[in-house]
């Protein structure tokens, strides 16, 4: 599970039928420095990615998302997604170096 900040959202006008009516947020993965201080401006160089969201995350939220095949598990039928927003983070306790 990686963590990132919601920086925007994505609206599709055409999508696969299983993806109708779903909500997509654009998430920029957080760098290690941002765990220590969430508004530090040292960005990670991972690209932003689109994450399926059902928890209602808004811009600026820190979210934890699951990637890969496990992103499909919460759904009844197999939906072709690979990033699912599992957590909207209340607080990050970081005590690394």
């Amino acid at each position, binding site marked *: *599970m990686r963590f990132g900040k919601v920086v925007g959202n994505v609206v599709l006008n055409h999508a696969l039928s299983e993806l109708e009516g779903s909500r997509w947020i654009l998430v920029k993965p957080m*760098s*290690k420095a941002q765990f220590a201080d969430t508004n530090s401006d040292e960005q990670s160089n991972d690209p932003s990615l689109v994450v399926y969201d059902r*928890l209602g995350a808004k811009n600026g939220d820190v979210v*934890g998302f699951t990637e890969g095949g496990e992103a499909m598990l*919460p759904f009844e039928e197999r939906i072709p997604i690979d990033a699912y927003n599992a957590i909207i983070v209340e607080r990050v306790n970081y005590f690394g170096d």
Partner: protein
Amino acid sequence: MIIGRIVGNIVPAVCHPGLDGVRLLLCEVLDDQGNGTGKVIGTADWLGAGAGNTVLVVSDGDAAEANTNDPKIPLRNVVMGIIDDVEVDEA
């Protein structure tokens, strides 16, 4: 499986119902020499790993299902063991 060091934890505000009450730790992935690589991932933990512990983390969903017998949890990384010692041959 990867080797990591526990560097923090996460308090969720809202989460997937399956993750309710699951202990969520921040773990920095280590390289062979045990130094941090700067990549921090979140892992679930049922073993009680503490701050600074070196842990073994799996990234497959079946391990999460084994711990919670709920196949619907969107979770990959689980702490599978707390590492005592790592010996690396300097070949």
